[in-house]
């Protein structure tokens, strides 16, 4: 009954995958592909997740290119897409012709550049912000075309600011928060002193995301070797600083991002500010439906920061890689990305799109008509650092965020004992 069957299938999966990946499946020669010009009809599948805003674009392409028809496959979440990607990549077949990947799991895939087609092409040179292209370049090989980025601003509740005696206008708030993280925390303390129980930000974990995305090489050395956690003084200092602000200074609402309580917290005035990459605007709008007072300030502690964003890759296992490359290049062209932004808010990573009036003039009524396009474009210009994220980034960062959660959300540990656990968990990863 029950899961006996499940285990069997799981076991079958394990072995089937392993069996398939045992062979030599990476054939990177793309000489045998049809590129559509030969008059033969080809179908290209594009696999994305969440919302890329591609629906209308694909219709547009299909109408203009009868020889290359594009089919769209959407996964609900990025995790689902990642599982699918890893599994099919291991199996050596079954991936779509174009696979969207997220920057956070890019480094894992970058270990297997042979599995992807080199997308370098004179026609796309200089199309993206430098750091966006850099992150997807492995040994001179470009494995992904940038789609969107997540330049971070600060979202805030003007109504709660007013109650606590802080300025409410977005330019004044930007001036108030201009500075480093100490400034952000300091204003937070002033706010919490008068807010009557409303916290300054949602969670320690989110603040950690904002801060490590400003570090050159947070968890690993740039040669790919991990920095042992117990010797990583920089991260330990950051960890203590965040918990000092979150727990001791009571700035954090103690809500783990994406959790049930966090979602409910938007409706219950639990916190007044959030670190806000472009794609977060849609999330806030959804969770805080009916709440008035949200606004966006053109500022970010410590300068600029980028959180998330995606790429389109062309897996080498596909049959029509040349045609797929063409489609991917078209979808990620500035004109197309500007349309995707207007449709779903995915902020462009293309230099030209950042100057496109369709992007710059875009404002969002939910955020008190904030000129979101212009603010995010400014925030993107402020990003100077692309943190090095190697193959073990995801694993190590999970260890650290777990440690923060134990103190900030679960309250089962203090900062010191939770750090000891994190060091043990790091050792258990067995990566150094």
């Amino acid at each position: 009954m029950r899961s006996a069957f499940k285990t069997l299938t799981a076991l079958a999966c394990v072995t089937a995958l392993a069996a398939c990946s045992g062979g030599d499946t990476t054939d990177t020669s793309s000489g045998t592909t049809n590129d559509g010009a030969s008059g033969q009809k080809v179908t290209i599948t594009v696999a994305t997740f969440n919302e890329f805003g591609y629906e209308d674009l694909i219709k547009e392409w299909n109408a203009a290119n009868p020889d290359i028809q594009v089919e769209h496959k959407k996964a609900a979440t990025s995790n689902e897409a990642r599982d699918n990607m890893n599994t099919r990549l291991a199996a050596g077949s079954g991936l779509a012709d174009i696979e969207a990947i997220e920057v956070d799991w890019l480094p894992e895939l970058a270990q297997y550049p042979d599995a992807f087609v080199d997308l370098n092409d004179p026609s796309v040179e200089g199309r993206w912000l430098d750091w966006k292209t850099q992150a997807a370049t492995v040994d001179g090989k470009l494995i992904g075309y940038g789609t969107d980025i997540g330049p971070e601003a600060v979202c805030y509740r003007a109504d709660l600011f007013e109650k606590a005696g802080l300025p409410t206008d977005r330019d004044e708030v930007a001036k108030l928060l201009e500075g480093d993280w100490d400034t952000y925390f300091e204003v937070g303390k002033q706010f919490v002193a008068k807010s009557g129980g409303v916290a300054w930000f949602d969670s320690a974990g989110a603040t950690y995301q904002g801060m490590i995305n400003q570090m050159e090489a947070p968890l690993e050395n740039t040669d790919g070797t991990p920095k042992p956690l117990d010797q990583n003084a920089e991260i330990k200092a950051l960890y203590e600083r965040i918990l000092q602000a979150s727990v001791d200074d009571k700035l954090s609402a103690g809500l783990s991002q994406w959790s049930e309580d966090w979602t409910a917290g938007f409706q219950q005035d639990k916190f007044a500010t959030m670190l806000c990459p472009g794609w977060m605007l849609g999330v806030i709008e959804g969770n805080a439906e009916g709440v008035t007072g949200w606004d966006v300030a053109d500022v970010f502690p410590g300068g600029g920061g980028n959180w998330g964003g995606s790429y389109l890759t062309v897996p080498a296992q596909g049959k029509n890689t040349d045609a797929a490359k063409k489609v991917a290049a078209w979808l990620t062209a500035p004109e197309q990305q500007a349309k995707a932004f207007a449709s779903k808010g995915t902020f462009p990573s293309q230099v030209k799109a950042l100057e496109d009036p369709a992007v710059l003039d875009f404002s969002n009524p939910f955020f008190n008509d904030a000129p979101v396009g212009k603010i995010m474009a400014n925030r993107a210009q402020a990003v100077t650092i692309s943190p090095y994220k190697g193959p073990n980034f995801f694993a190590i960062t999970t260890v650290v965020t777990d440690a923060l959660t134990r103190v900030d959300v679960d309250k089962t540990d203090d900062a010191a004992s939770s750090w000891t656990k994190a060091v043990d968990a790091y050792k258990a990863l067995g990566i150094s």
Partner: protein
Amino acid sequence: MSNLTGRQRLSRLEVKLSPYLYVSPFFIVFAIVGLFPLLYTAWVSVHQWHLIGGQGEMIGLGNYTAVLEQPNFWKSLRNTFSIFLLSSVPQVIAAIVIAYFLDTNIRAKTFWRMGVLLPYVVAPVAVSMIFAKIFADQSGAANALLALVGLDPIAWHGSAFWSHVAIATMVNFRWTGYNALIFLAAMQAIPREIYEAAIVDGASRWKTFFSVTVPMLRPTIIFVVITSTIGGLQIFDEPRMFDTMGTGGSDKQWMTLTMYIYELGWGAQKSFGRAAAVSWILFLIIIVVGAINFLITRRIASSDAKGARR
């Protein structure tokens, strides 16, 4: 023998062989989807084997010793058993009791019988999403109820024990009715004469229940206990859906063995070798626990039959 025609010989052969042929599809399918993966997993477990990188060196029992040294293995073993006990024990007891009442003369029998099966029809992921709302630490219904009666809120996610209780609740919600129906079917097969004899002998309802119903259910109890052991030790959906991260909590306080297998194979380490090693360890654990349960349930039930209970 030599005077048999070829045709006769063929028909003799058919009589001898055909039973085996008729049962063979099951065994052929089992060999492909059951036995082969089982053995192949054993083969994978003695190698370094990467999710994407594929087969590496043979390292003998290296994967086994490596996982046995990881604290998360022991933690997930503890969690698995804790959730298993918190779910299976109350589940079997409640199922027998519910079946007993369904077996009495109640109105609208079919309605009630189908009613207890309803939770089973709901997809486990949907169940988990509903219970995630109930057991949310700050905004959940469970803590709101506790606050109504003046009790302190419970850290449903922070505390290991309470997270196990919450997950066990989901499992029980889903499986109690299903097991109750199995017990009900078995109860209806008990000859009514035995009950009548018990009534004539002046046995109370409780006495009848413990001395007649329960012992007569013995084979069914064994079946339900064994299957819920197998299922309970492999629990995955409910704990994975218990929070949005799906990694078993910040302190791995509700990570089960199957989640651990998933994390080893598809998570940070991407090590199929280690995942396969834990799969085999889990397989052996299930066999051992299943055997123990079999012996215990057989003993309890048979001592009941002799009327030597307690």
